């Protein structure tokens, strides 16, 4: 049984539609990451609601976890702020639901670690996530070896499972990574944690090229991309550019909640201009 027959009313193709539209416009997507509930639920919702207008094409929303072992200091701090602000998995799904009341076009993917999902209950999580309007999942600590846990059940609920390909993913391993991938491919620009050093553009271009040879899925590039110039450079040869740590740092350094909202939206506008400018040159 495929997703379309299982839940015909559920719009499961927001990701496909968005990438198709952008392909027609001949420009890459800007994917923006913020952590759910950072710094608190209300501010987080305000940030989310303004993202599409500021130029985000796809929204990545972090599910806070106490032990984010693939994240650098910026997202670690964002996670702590969210947890201290009372964020939970239930509140994260509530946040998505609230966002979907006003915004039906922009795809939203949840990103995080497996334990909070496992603890919530995989089936219950997928039902609630589909109902809230989640389009995809990125779960850092679920490699293809554990597809039975969440990847395959997610597909049955019409939720894409976005796979990460990294510099260590060699030709021998790549088919395994692509096997049950859906939505888009997330090309990790370097070996390391989020918010690390600046990626080497030529290396990333070669990786993206290798992924394109083997897959028709759109390729997004993330890790270490902080500003409009980098976004423009990477966007020239990829389908999407992901920015996260720089956005949560803007929340961190803002003095007021209103300031945090303004800072994130301001940076997203710059980045959006960057990916559009990159496409024009």
């Amino acid at each position, binding site marked *: 049984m495929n997703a379309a027959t299982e839940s015909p009313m559920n719009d499961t193709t927001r990701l496909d539609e968005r990438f198709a539209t952008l392909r027609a416009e001949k420009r890459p997507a800007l994917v923006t990451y913020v952590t759910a509930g950072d710094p608190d639920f209300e501010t987080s919702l305000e940030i989310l609601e303004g993202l599409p207008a500021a130029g985000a094409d796809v929204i990545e929303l972090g599910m*806070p*976890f*106490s*032990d*984010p*072992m*693939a994240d*650098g200091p910026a997202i*670690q701090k964002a996670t702590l702020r969210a*947890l201290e602000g009372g964020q*939970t*998995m*239930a509140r994260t799904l509530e946040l998505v639901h609230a966002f979907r009341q006003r915004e039906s076009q922009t795809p939203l993917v949840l990103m995080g*670690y*497996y*334990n*909070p*999902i*496992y*603890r*919530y209950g995989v089936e219950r999580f997928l039902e609630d996530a589909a109902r809230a309007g989640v389009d995809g999942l990125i779960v*850092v*600590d*679920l*490699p293809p*070896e*554990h597809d039975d846990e969440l990847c395959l059940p997610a597909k049955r609920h019409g939720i894409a499972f976005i*796979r*990460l*390909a*990294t*510099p*260590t*993913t*060699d030709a021998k*391993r790549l088919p395994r*990574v692509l096997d049950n991938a859906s939505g888009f491919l997330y090309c*990790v620009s370097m*070996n*390391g*944690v989020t918010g*690390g050093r600046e990626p080497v553009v030529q290396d990333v271009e070669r990786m993206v090229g290798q992924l394109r040879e083997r897959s028709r899925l759109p390729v997004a590039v993330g890790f270490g991309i902080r500003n409009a110039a980098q976004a423009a450079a990477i966007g020239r040869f990829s389908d999407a550019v992901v920015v996260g740590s720089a956005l949560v740092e803007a929340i961190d350094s803002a003095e007021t909640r209103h300031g945090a909202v303004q800072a994130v939206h301001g940076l997203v506008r710059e980045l959006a201009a960057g990916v559009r400018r990159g496409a024009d040159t």
Partner: protein
Amino acid sequence: MTDLSMQPDAHGMFGRFGGRFVPETLMPLINELQAEYDTARQDSEFQRQLAYFQRDYVGRPSPLYFAERLTEHFGGARIYLKREELNHTGAHKINNCIGQILLAKRMGKTRIIAETGAGMHGVATATVAARFGMSCVVYMGAADIERQQPNVFRMKLLGAEVIPVTTGTGTLKDAMNEALRDWVTNVDDTFYIIGTVAGPHPYPAMVRDFQAVIGRETRAQILEMEGRLPDSLVACIGGGSNAMGLFHPFLADESVEMIGVEAGGKGIDTGMHAASLSGGAPGVLHGNRTYLLQGEDGQIIDAHSISAGLDYPGIGPEHAWLHEQGRVEYVSITDDEALAAFQCCCRQEGIIPALESAHALAEVAKRAPTLPRDHLMVVNLSGRGDKDMISGAQHLGENFQ
């Protein structure tokens, strides 16, 4: 019946526990490590080197010592101590480190990283890194650095860089997060020597195999001394490597009772403890599924124990499985009970045990008096207590005389 000693399966699962829950960046390396380990364990030259270092460098076999005075003191079971504290560097940790660094060398790695709680694994890792001429970085929680100063100095003296971890509560779990971040970043030249029977497959099985020398020796020694197998085995458990090493060679012997002792901290009902089986629930952390201290929302709860080496919110996946199979009995011992046993062992046997091992001794104090005099009980004295002088003195304080 399942053969309890033939785990895990090809996917690294002990029943529903274990696995390889790691970021994609690490998967190729983990698969490579597994292949290398599978080859090495069949390789007679690797086994010869391992045996050589265990004998001439670590000082194995460690004695199985009849604790006559403790036996008299408790007035019941005949108590034997497996003297792992006599190993080079003062604990069982080096058994595993020797094995892993030989693998690192085979794989052409040049840089070693490790996490440490009490510092015993950090010291053992720094030691083998020095011996094999590799650079070494040890991640250690800031709170643990505070309470284990002598070990911090030892690691530095051995040429390791000790990096304080201030995230979370600054204990072992946070040190492991930081080590994993380092590994993901430096995956090309770096070998991560995990110190316990946890982490992604093949670590839980590999560390167990390197530690199983404890149980194999114990088996031969007790047969030699008593002409029969022991009736019970007792060992403390943080991640559970000394316990797994002692238990594993006896798993198929149904007559041998096994007791794993978790750190009960200030008591399970206070929430201030490190007893993942007694007070936790299944979850996924640090590459494996196992019992974890966690809240309703799946956020990990910080462990508490007087002993830095047991202060971890998880437990090796094989223990989680043996717990559910009912093969091993898991109990907990409080900080105060451990401190009492710590002093008792010093006074009765002239042996200063690590606070970790004192948890096992405290369980012996509860059980031994109720058992017949022909009951043979082996306790893993997993480490020596020299590192605990400062924290021991703090806790015993004015009551000490």
